[in-house]
C-alpha cells in the first residue's frame, strides 16, 4: 500500500500573466514491481514481461542482462528499437514522459512496442517508487534531473537483482555515460551494443547522427540556424516570420513559405536561403530587402548536376513581377517522416555510403550508410532522416526497411499506401475476435425490434464484381395510388458495437480504399463481403428508410426502421438497365425498377432545378489480366440510367436522414458540408472561357449550372465536358463535421445544392455512415446512446480524422490509377486524341480523355538539345503560336504517348505532338510504327518533352 507522501511544488504562469505556486501531493509506493519473472522479492509484481533467462548472444556483454534506455536513445534510435532482435527492455516513466513531451510520433511507436508482448518491454514507474524517487535539487536543470533519476533507477535495478541479472544502461550522451560509469552502472551506447550482436540489418537501422563528427572538419556549406530563444524573440518582435515550408515540385532549390494571415507566400531561392528546410517543416523566415526580391523561375532543377542552369538563372534580367523573398534562419518544428524511395546507382564497389532518392520529388536526396548495397540496390526502401549538419549537402539518414523489388506490383502498391499513410496492416486478433461466426444466420431473436421485410421485392444494383453491397431498393404500388419506396442499407452497426476493438480500428481506417486490383477493407472481409453485404437470396439485417410517395415523387410519409430483408436479386447496372428496357418482362422487380427509374428522373430534375451541379472528372477502369493482374485495356467508366437511379435514391436517403438526426441531435449530428468556393478559384476558368466567347456566371451554384449548360460549341463536342472538368477543380473539398461546431447556414452542400446532407448509405466502406447509423438508431429508439456518441468534442475529433483519411485515400486511388497507366504503357506507343487544358509559358497541359490522363507537352527545348522551331507565347490571350499554328485552351490535338522508363524512380508518360503538324517539331503518326520506347531514347527526337533530366551517375 501507499507508503509515504511528499509534495511537488512548482511555479506556473497563467494566461493572464499571474504567477501561481502549485502544490500537488506525490505518493510514493512500495507495490511497484521490477517486472522480471526471475524476481522473488517484489510482492505485488503485477505484470512481469521481462524473461527469466534473457538470451546472451552478445559478444560485448557475456552476462544475462536487461536493457534500460535513456531518453535520447528512444528518440533517435526508434527504428532500431523496432527491430525484433532487441528484447527485454525496461522503459522508465521518466523516459516515457520525456519522449511524449518531445515527439508524439516516437511516443506512439514506443507505446506500440510496449504493447507488443513478444518484445518483452516493461514500463517501470520510477517516479512513484519509494526507492527510486529523488527530489529535484535547487538549481538543477530539468534535463540533469531526469538524467539523475534514470541513473538512480539503473543503480536500484542492479542492486535489486544482486548481480544475477545485469541491467545495462543504454545512453548515447557522452557526458551522462561518463557519469553513469562513474557511479558503477554498466553503461554503453546502442552502437556498441549492436556491434556485439553482429547483425547487419540492425546496424543499418542505427541512426547516422554520430557519424557527423568526422565531417566537422569540413567547410560548412549552410549558414547556422538561430537558437530557439533567438527565434522566439525574433518572431515576437516581428523581425522573423513563422510559416510552413513547401518545396517546389520541380526545382529543388526553390520553395515557398506560407505564413498564416499573409496573402502572398514568401519565396525562397537557392541552397543557402532554403537552409536545410524540408517540405512541411515549420520554419522561421527573415525577409530580404526589397531590392533582392525575385520571382519564381520556371526551371526544372533536380540535382546539383544541373547547377549550370542555376547560374544562368542568376544572370537573367530582373523580373517584373517580384515576390516577397526571404531566407530560412531556423527550423521551429521538423516534420520529418519516413520516406519511400530507392538507392541511387553506385559505381564504386563495396562502398558503404550511398545516396537515397525519395519517391516524393519535394524531398531532397538522403545520404545513408549500408553494407547491403547489393541486396538493396533494386528494392523499394524506407528511409528515415536523422540529421542535416551544416557541412553536408544532403541530410543524413538510415535504412528502416525494404518493401520489395522495384516494379513489382506488391512493392509499388505498398509505396502508394505508405506515402498516403493508409493503414493497411492485417486486422489484429483482437479485432477478429469481435467478428461473429462464419456460419452466422438471422435467428428469431434478431426479429425483435425489427420489421420483417423478407417478402418485399427488394433488389440491389451495383457495379459488376462488387462484393460489398450496402444498399438495396424496392418500390411497390399502394392501394391509394401512391407508392411505397424503400431504401435498405446494410446494418453494419449490429456487428460493430461502439468501443470494441473492431470499432476503434474502423474509425482509424475511416474508409475502404480501392486501389486498382486491390481493396483495403475498413472492416474485415467476413463482414464487408458476406454478413453485411446484401447478397441476393440471403436473409440480411438492414436499416431501412421507407417512404410513401405520390406519383409525382412527393414524399407523403417517411419512416426509418431496422429490418430483416431478403434481396431477390443482386444486379449490375447493365442487367438492371436491360430489365427496365425489356418491355416483355413484367415481374414485380421489373415493374418496381421501372417506377423507381421514373421517380429518379423526377428527383434529378428537381435537384438540378434547385441548382445542383453536374460536374465531370474523367474516371477510367482497367480491364485486368486475371493471372498476371496486369492491365490489358482501359475503358472510361460508362454511366447508365440505372447508375443515376441508384444515386438519386441514395441522395434522397442521405438528405432525409440528415434532417432527422439533426432535428434530434442538434449538437453532435455527423453531417457533411461542401463549402461554396471563393470566387477567386474560378478566375482562371472564367478567363479561359472568355477567350472562346463563353461567359460563365459563378455567383451561385445555380448560375454556374446554367452557364455550364449553355456553354456548348458545335465544332468541339468535348468542350462542355472540358469546362466541367475544369470547374470541378475549382471546387473545395466536402468535409464531415459535428453539427454543433457550425451554424446552420454553413451546413450547405454546394455541389448538391442541399441545405443539409450526410452520409448514411455506405456503412460497409465509410465510418461516417456507421456514426450516422448509430445516431439514427438512437433517434428511432432502437438502441441506447453511448457516452462517446454524445460527446461533441470526440465526434468532431473523429470527423477530422475521417476528413484526412478520406482525402488521402482518394489521392492513393489516383496514384494507383497512374501506376497502372504506366504499367499499361510499358513497351507501347499510342496515338491519341487530346485536348489542351492549360497553355503555359513553355508547355501545353493536355488531357487525354480515353485514359483520364493529363500530360505536359513541352514546347521549349531541353538542356543540350536543339530545336528548330520556336513558339511565341501570348500571355494576354493564353496562346502559343508557331507559324500558322495557334494553340488555345480547349483545342483538340493528337499526341503520341509512350513511357519513359529511363528514371526508375519516376517513370513518366511522354507526349509528342502528332497533329496539328508543325515541321521539325511534330512527329509522324506511329500507328504502323514498331519502334520501342528504348529505341526512341537512343535516338532522341529534336524535342523530347520530358519534364525531368535523365538520371545521372552519382558522384561518390
Amino acid at each position: 500500500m501507499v507508503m509515504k507522501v511528499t509534495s511537488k511544488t512548482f511555479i506556473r504562469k497563467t494566461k493572464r500573466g499571474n504567477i501561481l505556486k502549485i502544490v500537488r501531493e506525490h505518493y510514493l509506493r512500495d507495490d511497484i514491481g521490477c517486472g522480471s519473472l526471475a524476481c522473488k522479492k517484489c510482492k505485488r509484481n503485477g505484470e512481469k514481461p521481462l524473461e527469466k533467462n534473457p538470451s546472451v548472444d552478445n559478444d560485448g556483454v557475456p552476462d544475462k542482462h536487461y536493457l534500460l534506455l535513456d531518453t535520447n536513445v528512444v528518440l533517435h534510435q526508434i527504428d532500431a528499437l523496432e527491430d525484433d532482435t532487441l528484447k527485454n527492455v525496461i522503459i522508465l516513466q521518466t523516459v516515457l514522459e520525456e519522449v511524449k513531451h518531445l515527439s508524439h510520433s516516437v511516443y506512439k511507436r514506443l507505446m506500440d512496442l510496449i504493447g507488443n508482448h513478444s518484445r518483452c518491454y516493461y514500463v517501470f514507474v520510477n517516479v512513484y517508487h519509494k526507492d527510486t524517487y529523488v527530489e529535484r535539487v535547487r538549481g538543477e536543470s530539468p534535463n540533469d534531473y531526469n538524467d539523475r533519476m534514470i541513473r538512480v533507477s539503473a543503480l536500484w535495478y542492479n542492486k535489486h537483482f544482486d548481480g544475477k541479472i545485469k541491467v545495462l544502461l543504454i545512453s548515447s550522451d557522452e557526458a551522462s555515460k561518463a557519469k553513469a560509469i562513474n557511479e558503477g552502472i554498466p553503461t554503453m551506447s546502442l552502437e556498441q551494443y549492436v556491434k556485439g550482436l553482429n547483425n547487419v540489418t540492425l546496424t543499418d537501422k542505427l541512426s547516422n547522427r554520430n557519424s557527423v563528427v568526422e565531417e566537422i572538419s569540413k567547410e560548412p556549406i549552410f549558414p547556422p540556424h538561430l537558437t530557439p530563444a533567438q527565434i522566439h524573440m525574433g518572431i515576437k518582435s516581428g523581425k522573423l516570420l513563422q510559416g510552413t515550408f513547401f518545396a517546389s515540385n520541380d526545382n529543388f532549390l526553390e520553395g515557398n513559405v506560407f505564413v498564416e494571415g499573409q496573402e502572398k507566400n514568401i519565396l525562397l531561392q537557392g541552397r543557402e536561403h532554403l537552409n536545410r528546410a524540408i517540405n512541411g517543416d515549420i520554419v522561421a523566415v527573415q525577409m530580404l530587402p526589397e531590392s533582392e526580391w525575385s520571382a519564381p523561375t520556371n526551371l526544372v532543377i533536380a540535382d546539383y548536376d544541373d547547377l549550370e542552369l542555376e547560374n544562368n538563372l542568376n544572370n537573367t534580367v530582373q523580373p517584373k513581377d517580384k515576390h516577397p523573398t526571404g531566407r530560412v534562419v531556423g527550423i521551429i518544428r521538423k516534420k520529418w517522416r519516413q520516406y519511400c524511395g530507392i538507392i541511387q546507382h553506385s559505381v564504386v564497389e563495396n562502398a558503404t555510403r550511398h545516396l537515397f532518392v525519395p519517391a516524393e520529388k519535394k524531398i531532397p536526396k538522403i545520404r545513408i550508410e549500408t553494407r547491403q548495397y547489393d541486396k538493396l540496390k533494386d528494392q523499394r526502401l524506407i528511409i528515415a532522416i536523422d540529421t542535416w549538419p551544416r557541412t553536408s549537402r544532403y541530410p543524413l539518414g538510415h535504412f528502416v526497411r525494404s518493401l520489395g523489388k522495384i516494379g513489382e506490383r506488391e512493392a509499388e502498391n505498398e509505396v502508394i499506401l505508405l506515402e498516403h499513410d493508409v493503414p493497411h496492416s492485417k486486422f489484429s486478433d483482437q479485432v477478429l475476435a469481435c467478428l461473429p461466426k462464419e456460419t452466422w444466420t438471422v435467428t428469431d431473436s434478431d426479429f425483435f425490434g425489427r420489421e420483417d421485410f423478407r417478402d418485399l421485392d427488394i433488389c440491389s444494383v451495383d457495379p459488376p464484381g462488387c462484393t460489398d453491397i450496402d444498399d438495396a431498393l424496392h418500390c411497390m404500388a399502394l392501394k391509394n395510388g401512391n407508392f411505397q419506396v424503400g431504401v435498405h442499407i446494410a446494418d453494419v452497426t449490429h456487428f460493430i458495437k461502439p468501443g470494441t476493438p473492431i470499432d476503434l480500428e474502423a474509425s482509424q481506417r475511416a474508409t475502404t480504399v480501392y486501389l486498382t486490383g486491390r481493396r483495403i477493407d475498413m472492416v474485415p472481409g467476413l463482414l464487408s463481403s458476406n454478413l453485411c453485404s446484401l447478397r441476393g437470396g440471403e436473409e440480411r439485417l438492414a436499416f431501412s428508410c421507407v417512404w410513401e410517395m405520390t406519383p409525382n415523387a412527393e414524399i407523403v410519409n417517411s419512416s426509418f426502421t431496422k429490418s430483416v430483408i431478403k434481396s431477390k436479386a443482386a444486379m449490375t447496372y447493365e442487367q438492371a438497365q436491360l430489365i427496365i428496357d425489356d418491355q416483355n418482362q413484367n415481374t414485380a422487380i421489373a415493374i418496381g425498377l421501372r417506377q423507381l427509374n421514373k421517380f429518379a428522373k423526377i428527383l434529378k430534375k428537381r435537384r438540378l432545378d434547385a441548382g445542383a451541379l453536374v460536374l465531370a472528372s474523367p474516371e477510367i477502369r482497367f480491364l485486368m489480366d486475371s493471372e498476371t493482374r496486369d492491365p490489358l485495356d482501359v475503358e472510361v467508366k460508362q454511366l447508365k440510367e440505372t447508375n443515376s437511379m441508384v444515386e438519386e435514391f441514395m441522395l434522397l436517403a442521405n438528405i432525409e436522414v440528415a434532417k432527422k438526426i439533426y432535428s434530434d441531435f442538434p449538437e453532435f449530428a455527423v453531417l457533411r458540408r461542401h463549402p461554396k468556393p471563393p470566387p477567386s478559384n474560378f478566375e482562371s476558368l472564367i478567363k479561359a472561357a472568355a477567350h472562346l466567347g463563353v461567359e460563365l456566371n459563378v455567383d451561385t451554384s445555380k448560375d454556374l449550372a446554367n452557364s455550364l449548360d449553355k456553354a456548348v460549341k458545335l465544332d468541339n463536342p468535348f468542350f462542355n465536358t472540358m469546362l466541367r472538368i475544369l470547374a470541378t477543380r475549382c471546387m473545395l473539398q466536402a468535409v464531415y463535421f459535428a453539427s454543433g461546431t457550425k451554424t446552420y447556414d454553413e451546413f450547405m452542400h454546394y455541389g448538391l445544392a442541399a441545405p443539409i446532407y450526410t452520409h448514411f448509405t455506405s456503412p460497409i466502406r465509410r465510418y461516417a455512415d456507421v456514426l450516422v447509423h448509430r445516431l439514427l438508431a438512437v433517434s428511432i429508439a432502437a438502441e441506447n446512446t453511448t457516452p462517446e456518441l454524445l460527446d461533441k468534442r470526440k465526434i468532431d475529433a473523429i470527423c477530422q480524422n475521417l476528413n484526412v483519411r478520406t482525402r488521402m485515400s482518394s489521392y492513393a486511388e489516383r496514384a494507383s490509377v497512374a501506376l497502372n497507366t504506366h504499367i499499361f504503357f510499358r513497351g507501347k506507343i499510342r496515338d491519341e486524341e487530346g485536348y489542351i487544358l492549360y497553355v503555359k509559358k513553355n508547355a501545353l497541359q493536355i488531357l487525354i480523355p480515353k485514359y483520364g490522363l493529363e500530360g505536359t507537352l513541352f514546347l521549349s527545348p531541353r538542356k543540350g538539345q536543339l530545336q528548330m522551331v520556336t513558339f511565341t507565347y501570348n500571355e494576354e490571350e493564353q496562346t502559343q503560336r508557331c507559324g500558322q499554328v495557334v494553340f488555345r485552351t480547349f483545342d483538340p490535338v493528337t499526341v503520341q504517348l509512350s513511357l519513359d522508363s529511363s528514371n526508375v524512380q519516376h517513370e513518366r508518360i511522354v507526349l509528342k505532338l502528332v497533329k496539328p503538324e508543325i515541321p521539325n517539331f511534330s512527329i509522324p503518326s506511329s500507328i504502323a510504327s514498331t519502334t520501342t520506347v528504348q529505341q526512341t531514347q537512343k535516338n532522341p527526337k529534336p524535342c523530347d518533352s520530358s519534364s525531368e533530366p535523365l538520371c545521372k551517375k552519382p558522384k561518390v
Partner: protein
Amino acid sequence: MDLLSRQGLRTDGRRSDELRRISCKMGVFNQPDGSAYLEQGNTKVLAAVYGPHEIRVNRSKAPNDCAVINCQYSMATFSRSERKRRPRDNKSAELTVHLKQAMTTAIKTDLYPKSQIDIFVEVLQSDGGNYSVCVNAATLALIDAGIAMEEFVISCTSSLANGEVPLVDISHLEETLGGPSITVAILPISGKIAMLETSQRMHINHVEPVLTEAMRGCRYIYDTLNKTIKKHYEEIGGALNWGTEEYNI
C-alpha cells in the same frame, strides 16, 4: 494529459480506487461547543459548531417541534494558489444550502425543539473535493459538540478517467481536467443518500459505476474517522480515568 496511466496510476501516484491520506483532530477550539480539523490530502478544513442554543433570528418563523440548523460554508482567501477576493460568494451560498440539507438528514432535530444549531465550516486549503471534506469535518464537529445524530454523514467525490475508469476522491487537477463528477453524502450504516450532485451532464451508463465508487469511498472514510473518534475519546476518557477501577469508585 492522461488522468490514469496505462500502469494504472493517477497523476499523484494513487491507484484509481485509493483515497488520499486522511488525518483529523477533534476539539481544536474551546469557545465553540464542538470543533474539528480535517485533512484529506491537501484539502484542509476547519469546522465549528455552536448549540443547541436559543433561536436568535426570525424567532417568529421558527418551528416549534424541532431545531433550526444554520450553516455557513466559506473559503479562506488564502485557500487557493490565487488569492480569493471574498471568502463567500454565490458558489459558497449554494454549497451552504447543500451542507444544510446533508446535515439536517442526520441530526435528530426533534430532540431540540425551539433551539438552533450553527455549523460553520472554513476551507483553509483547497485541493479538490472541498464540499465532501466540509461535510465530514462538520460531522466530526457535531460529534464533538455532543449533538444527537442518527449516524454519521460522510461525503465523497468521484469522477471518471479516460471515459471509463471511475476515480475516487478526486484532487483539484482531476476535477479540472476530468469529465463530470458525482458528489454524494450518505449515512454509511443504513446506506441512505443524504445529498447527491453531479457537476455537469453525465451519461447514464457512467452514473452507476461512479456512484458506487463514491459510496465505497464514503464507507472507507467512515471507518477511518470512526477509529480516530474512538481513539480520541479513549484519550479524553483516559485523562478522567474512564474505565479504570479508580473511576468506578
